[in-house]
């Protein structure tokens, strides 16, 4: 059913909006037709929640258009051994697959691979013992963006080395202001001139990976459309990296600031130290949640407006077409807003990472400044 809706979404929206003016005159005629057929459609009732969750979630195949989707490799590691097979074997969740190597039967249950026993029930203990390292839609999209990013920046680096000292050209001049902005306004401002250099590669990589994936997430067709930065596993990994780098680079003042705030009375420390220790973990946690929530929310809103078309379309055909215009306009507005959000969230993640690094390497005389952050 999802495939049908997906197909409708991608192919019909453009047709619907372009024909909306033409069809407006027929809306009364359509009303009569729609009421007679409403009962027939009842069993196939459109479920916006499922559509949206399906889109922002992960999948074992990459849906392109209509019934066409690219099967992705399923990689499963369990105590019994490693199984690698194509997700096409699941036949969109209709079939189970039994591996000859490990003699385990796998099933696609709610977009997740589970192990089933001989009687056809889900084997919870074997499922929880299994590691799913499949190349899912998000992983494939991530690979794509990683390759794209390497290609873009290595080609830029080449053009830098080809004409050193010259004014930037093309892609170079598009991205150089961002790189300089990150260096001057994010890294140097937050970390300081003395230490910023060693954090630059991480900050740049994080910024551009998030930014690129945010933008690709806005592209509705493959290889875009995956909600990578709106996936909590991705934001968690990034936040953990920031946490590890902060902790590793934390100097004497940083730890002293956490465990025994200078200048605070001893009785205050009993209150302050647990809060500061909690803060150490809270900071990356907030990083993780902020990016995840912002990107997911953006996708949910955009998809909700699309879903409105079909919800109203089921009630009344004319209303659906009328709403298609409204929804499209609003989705365009949301997309433009999301372009801004894509930059802002990448910037905020980078900036906060830089601020945390800054507090970790801050010298004693920077103490007040670091504390203010």
């Amino acid at each position: 059913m999802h495939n049908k809706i997906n197909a409708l979404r991608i192919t019909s929206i453009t047709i619907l909006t372009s024909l909306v003016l033409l069809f407006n005159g027929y809306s009364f005629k359509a009303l009569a037709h729609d009421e007679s057929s409403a009962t027939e459609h009842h069993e196939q009732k459109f479920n916006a929640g499922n559509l949206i969750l399906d889109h922002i979630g992960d999948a074992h195949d990459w849906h392109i258009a209509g019934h066409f989707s690219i099967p992705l490799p399923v990689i499963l590691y369990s105590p019994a051994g490693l199984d690698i097979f194509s997700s096409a074997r699941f036949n969109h969740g209709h079939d189970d697959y039994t591996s000859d190597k490990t003699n385990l039967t796998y099933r696609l249950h709610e977009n997740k691979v589970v192990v089933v026993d001989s009687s056809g029930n889900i084997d919870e203990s074997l499922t929880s013992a299994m590691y799913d390292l499949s190349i899912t839609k998000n992983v494939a999209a991530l690979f794509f963006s990683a390759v794209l990013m390497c290609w873009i920046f290595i080609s830029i680096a080449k053009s830098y080395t080809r004409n050193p000292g010259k004014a930037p050209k093309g892609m170079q001049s598009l991205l150089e202001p961002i790189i300089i902005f990150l260096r001057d306004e994010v890294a140097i401002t937050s970390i300081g001139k003395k230490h910023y250099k060693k954090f630059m590669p991480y900050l740049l990589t994080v910024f551009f990976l998030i930014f690129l994936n945010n933008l690709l997430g806005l592209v509705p067709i493959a290889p875009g459309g995956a909600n990578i930065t709106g996936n909590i596993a991705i934001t968690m990994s990034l936040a953990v990296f920031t946490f590890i780098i902060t902790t590793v680079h934390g100097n004497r003042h940083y730890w002293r600031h956490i465990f025994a705030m200078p200048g605070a009375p001893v009785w205050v420390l009993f209150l302050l130290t647990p809060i500061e220790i909690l803060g150490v973990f809270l900071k990356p946690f907030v990083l993780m949640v902020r990016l995840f929530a912002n990107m997911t929310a953006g996708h949910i809103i955009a998809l909700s407006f699309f879903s409105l078309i079909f919800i109203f379309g089921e009630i009344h055909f004319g209303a659906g077409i009328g709403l298609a215009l409204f929804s499209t306009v609003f989705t365009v507005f949301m997309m433009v807003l999301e372009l801004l959000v894509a930059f802002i969230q990448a910037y905020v993640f980078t900036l906060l990472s830089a601020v945390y690094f800054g507090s970790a390497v801050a010298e004693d005389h920077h103490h007040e400044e670091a504390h203010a952050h």
Partner: protein
Amino acid sequence: MDLVKPDFGLIFWMTVTFLIVFFIMKKFAWGPILKMIQEREESIEGALAAAEKAKEEMEKLQSSNEKLLAEARMEKDKMLKEAREIREKMISDAKDAAQKESQRILTEARNSIQNEKVAAINELKNQVALMSIEIAEKVVKKELSSNESQKVLVNTLINDIKLN
């Protein structure tokens, strides 16, 4: 909620991908890019500083030129002034000398005139004296032509001597 439950596979692949991307980018992209940007900034900064220095030098040169010019002008003024002074002095000196000379000539003329005059007067006096003697001689000759009158005179003279 599946949405907020991090998926192990995705964390694994993300970590692997990120680390690979990070190290590739660090070595092949960020390193050269940041280095080149910095080098370019430094070269631009250097060029700007050099231009600034050249400008300063130019200004310095110009000000020294101006100073030289002012000095030359001052020198010229001084020279002109001196020349004018010399000229004036020369003129005044010449005037003085001329005046003195004319004065001297005048004085000389006056003196010689005086001398001539005195000489002329003396000459005149002598002539007058001679003429007077001649006249007196003639008168005396005439008066003493008789013996009587000679006697009277001798007597008179003797009387005068007596009186003395």
